[in-house]
């Protein structure tokens, strides 16, 4: 990996200033995507800004009808959080199927969401629950946040501080794992909050996480796996690779969506 200067600011403002001053600075959260990427020299930031000493980025709390999770919360902390397990078990489940136990001790929700890997789990959880990403500058709804493969609405000097997930009546996540990497070949997050139905898909889209609106319309009539019977997704624009063709992923979206709705209504 190439050399870099290491910074460990103690406030979000200091971190944002470092980003503003250095065009190729990068934020270091858990590092479980960034460090492997740097080893491969696919990323070569001249400055690395470690967020671990910033106090305001941790914590999980119930605020009214939402659960608010600090950006530096590790996957293990989210999946084991009593409040997340009780109020949003689908999100606790999602965090518990990321990577492996050692990875879950390091990887963070903020890092995963900011990275927006097209096969990551959290983007599906955010879009599937209609979360709000709270940054150092503003609040961004998940519908406006994920802009494409590894692309988000974040500005170069903008930092995710917290993510707010609205409580929903029903939700579930179903993931079909890549047998080697354990990333999502296809993952589908479904939720129902009064009349708002969301079906978010990760792993499959050529532009990253996306919603399946015709599934959502069908589920509005009746939130049941039966409502999705016979419905399909076009393989156009889906990823195809050695792990699975676009047609296979399109098929899996239907299967995972039905399983997720069945789980949410069980």
């Amino acid at each position, binding site marked *: 990996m190439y050399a870099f200067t290491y910074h460990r600011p103690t406030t979000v403002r200091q971190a944002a200033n470092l980003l503003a001053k250095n065009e190729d600075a990068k934020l270091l959260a858990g*590092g479980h995507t960034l460090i492997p990427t740097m080893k491969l020299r696919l990323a070569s930031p001249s400055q690395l800004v470690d967020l671990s000493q910033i106090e305001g980025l941790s914590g999980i709390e119930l605020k009214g009808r939402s659960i608010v999770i600090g950006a530096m919360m590790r996957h293990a902390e989210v999946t084991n959080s009593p409040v997340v397990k009780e109020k949003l078990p689908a999100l606790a489940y999602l965090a518990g199927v990321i990577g492996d136990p050692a990875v879950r001790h390091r990887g963070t929700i903020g890092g995963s969401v900011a990275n927006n890997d097209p096969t990551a789990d959290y983007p599906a959880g955010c879009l599937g629950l209609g979360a709000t990403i709270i940054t150092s500058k503003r609040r961004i709804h998940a519908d406006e946040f994920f802009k494409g493969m590894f692309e988000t609405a974040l500005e170069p000097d903008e930092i995710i501080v917290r993510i707010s997930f609205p409580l929903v009546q029903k939700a579930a996540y179903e993931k079909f794992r890549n047998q080697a990497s354990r990333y999502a070949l296809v993952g589908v997050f479904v939720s129902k909050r009064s009349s708002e139905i969301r079906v978010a898909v990760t792993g499959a889209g050529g532009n990253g996480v996306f919603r399946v609106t015709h599934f959502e319309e069908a589920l509005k009539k009746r939130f049941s796996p039966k409502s999705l019977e016979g419905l399909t997704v076009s393989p156009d624009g889906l990823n195809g690779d050695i792990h699975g063709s676009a047609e296979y992923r399109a098929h899996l979206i239907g299967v995972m969506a039905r399983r997720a709705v069945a789980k949410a209504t069980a």
Partner: protein
Amino acid sequence: MSAVAMTVNGKAVTADVDPRTLLVEFLREHLRLTGTHVGCDTSQCGACVVHVNGKALKSCTTFAWQVEGANVTTIEGLAAPDEPLHPMQEAFREHHGLQCGYCTPGMIMSAIDIVNRKGFALEDHVIREELEGNICRCTGYHNIVKAIASGAAAMGGKKAAA
């Protein structure tokens, strides 16, 4: 940048290292604690697992600077040379939970982490699921799973007796 400092196996250590230094490099090359291995170097195989503040992590995917001030335990820290083996090490020996042994330090550190999180009575499927991040290319895992179940029970017995 000044020297990074942390506690490794109960001993305060410090060294002047480049920010690029991975925790596993710090342990192996600066402290000469070569029990922690580098297998894949891509955070998949688990040969590099150590405990930081009591939690298993992959030291090939962590910079030494990220754990400044932390308590690090490596395979060398489980039992002193003149002491009996840690119950989990003893269980791997007893059940022959290894062949070439390359993955073993990581397996044992992950196994103890599983016990810390899941308790002393571990069903086989739990052990197999929790070992997702540790790869062994020799054994087929059968004896590793037996060793961990037995080591977990022994850890429980030791705690009860203490």
